[in-house]
């Protein structure tokens, strides 16, 4: 049986007991953290089926259906708003931006980490400065750029602009990963006859796969997070992403369609989390600390 420590010792009852209670503590902590992260979604899942008369009555238990659950709010989300269009748009933009990010940042990160390390830090700081101007102001001059490129009200405007905030961190992350791959491995590959690029592709990349997966996760989710650029560049319903489209349709003046908003939240978050979980599992599975040695 794999234990927390991963080793099998000859154990006295006291040690066994201590280990058992440590393990219980560990499980409790993990459960609490998971609950902390997931509680809003669990609650949102209940709320989205609640009838109005049930929801807007503060005397009612918010976790129970005091009146029969209803699909009306889900139907409203799907039939009365172009929700699926928003999802499609967000997915398209996310995918395109992730691809561009990888394309731009993998070579750059490797270069800064291994090829031109003298420049590495300086350029790294400079690239990093991109984050220092908040999107809350940057969106104005960027609107200018987008208009000049005649991309106003077009999803491509987002694809052009979003890498500006995904690439810097991706370069940073990958620099970190590339740096933690020992030089000897690269040198060995070159000794074995690879060119520099060959070494990068055949030896380094496979080792950096966790980092690349991280960058993909990061890019995709960061693009779905944005709303200020999406708001500034796009106003047609059919081009809107989730962040702009859902509030536009479900927050009308001083009326919030809470249940439908909750539904949108859950429907967007859960599938993405499931997909990422699968990704993470595949590549992290083999590396469980100590468990294989125990």
């Amino acid at each position: 049986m794999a234990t927390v420590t991963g080793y099998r010792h000859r154990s006295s009852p006291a040690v066994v007991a201590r280990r058992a209670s440590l393990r219980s503590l560990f499980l409790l902590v993990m459960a609490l953290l998971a609950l902390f992260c997931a509680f809003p979604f669990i609650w949102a899942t209940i709320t989205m089926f609640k009838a109005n008369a049930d929801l807007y009555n503060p005397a009612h238990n918010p976790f129970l259906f005091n009146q029969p659950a209803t699909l009306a709010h889900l139907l409203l989300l799907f039939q009365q708003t172009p929700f699926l269009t928003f999802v499609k748009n967000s997915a398209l933009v996310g995918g395109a931006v992730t691809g561009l990010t990888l394309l731009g940042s993998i070579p750059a990160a490797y270069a800064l980490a291994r090829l031109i390390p003298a420049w590495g830090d300086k350029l790294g700081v400079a690239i990093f400065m991109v984050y220092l101007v908040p999107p809350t102001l940057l969106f104005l001059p960027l609107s200018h750029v987008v208009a000049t490129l005649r991309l106003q009200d077009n999803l491509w405007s987002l694809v052009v602009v979003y890498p500006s905030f995904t690439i810097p961190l991706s370069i940073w992350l990958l620099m970190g990963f590339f740096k933690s791959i020992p030089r000897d491995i690269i040198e060995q590959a070159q000794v074995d006859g690879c060119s520099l690029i060959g070494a990068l592709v055949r030896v380094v990349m496979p080792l950096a796969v966790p980092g690349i997966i991280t960058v993909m996760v990061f890019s995709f989710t960061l693009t779905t997070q944005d709303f200020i650029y999406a708001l500034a560049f796009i106003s047609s319903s059919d081009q809107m992403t989730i962040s702009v489209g859902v509030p536009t349709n479900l927050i009308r003046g001083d009326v919030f369609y809470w249940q439908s908003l909750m539904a949108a939240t859950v429907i967007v978050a859960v599938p993405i989390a499931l997909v990422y979980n699968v990704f993470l599992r595949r590549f992290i599975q083999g590396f469980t600390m100590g468990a294989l040695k125990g």
Partner: protein
Amino acid sequence: MSDVDTEAEKLTRRVETAWTGRLSRREFVQKAGLAAVGLGAGPYLLAACGGGAPSGGGGGGAKSQLTILQWSHFVPRYDTWFDAYVKQWGEANNVNVKVDHINQADLPARTAAEINAGSGHDLIEWIAPPSALEPSVLDLTDVVQEAEKKYGSQLPVCKSSTYNPTTKKYFGFCHSWSPDPGDYRKSLWTKVGMPNGPLTYDDLLNAGTAIKQQTGVRVGIGMSQEQDSNMAARALLWSYGASVQDANENVVLDSDATREAVNFMVKLFKQSMTNEIFSWTAASNNQGLVAGQLSYILNSISAYRTAQQTRPDIADDIFFRPALQGPTGKGFASEHVILIYLIPKWSKNVDKAKQFLLDLVGHTSDIVYQSELYNFPAFSKTNAQQKLFGSGGWLDKDPFGSHPANKLDLLKNAASWSVNVGYPGPSNAAIGEIFDTFVLPNMMASAARGTKTVDQAVSDAAAQCRQIFAKWRQRKLVGGSS
């Protein structure tokens, strides 16, 4: 439990009807999407055929373009009607029209982006006076004059929200507005001996306190960084004879009247409210009223209409009062929402845009009806006057199911107690900045929370206002001298 099921079904149908109105929204969205694609491709195809830039006039049968940006109306059927109306109008006038809706909280950012980029929509509808945008929009004096010829004089509240006396320009065209009555719970107020609700602020204080002591139900006047709190602060100040500026755009906030008003608000808070009111959004007072936890709020009829759908039992108990009177014997409330179209200078289809505005006023009765009486006419002789204000009209017999049917009839003279946000002066850019940075609700809040004394709160707020006024005066958009 079939009764409950039927109730749920009824509720569902009500919600859906509210959304769809006449035309199925989905149908419209599909058609609009196709139209948008066609619009997007069309001009470039034309240009490729050597037709030149897609713009104005109808020479050679080519349709011109018009794009409109506005908020998602809180009544979804209004948007459904409007989008369909716009399409019809476009066909009748040989124009390809596209309407885009966004969340009203996002309007300033979106408009700023378009102005900065120098391109975007031909018509943008704001729900508050866009006075700061004057340098980038067209002067619409001609449209206003034309409209007044056809539809009677424009209401003072609408004029003063769109006219800048310093530059003598109309920076926007107002086609309708929303009054801000008080909503009160009749059953609770009857128990404390005021079945007809409050007439003065003192009534509100006394009865509100009694109701809270007896039933725990609070008064719902916000002091948060949101719109309703802005309106409430102003209504209170005006009823005490105080204001941010005078008629000549001089800052007069630090007056005894202001201090009295703030003192009153502190008392009202301590006796009849809880500190929930410091964390409100624009929806909070609606929701509190619908939940039965508030005895009085200041809001447009949006809260009431929501109640009719979600808690009809409470809706039947909600009644209305005009602006509360202060020690001056007068009561004023701000317009809750004022619908103003602006035409940016870059618009390539100005004539059609102006035409659209004029024609829109001709459909005021639709505007009023489709908004479920939320939008009121801005002009005095539209096709809505009789239908809305006439005897036996919509205010006498609410077509949207009020019990009793004449519940809304006090709104007939709403224009007499409604003023613009800058009263007694115009809604200038300084007033706009003060409004959008919540100077007045924060003044009230800091006094009520005790973080500042009343005197300090008032003088700090006045200093802020002076700074703001000074800056806009430098930009020559605001008059006055102090």
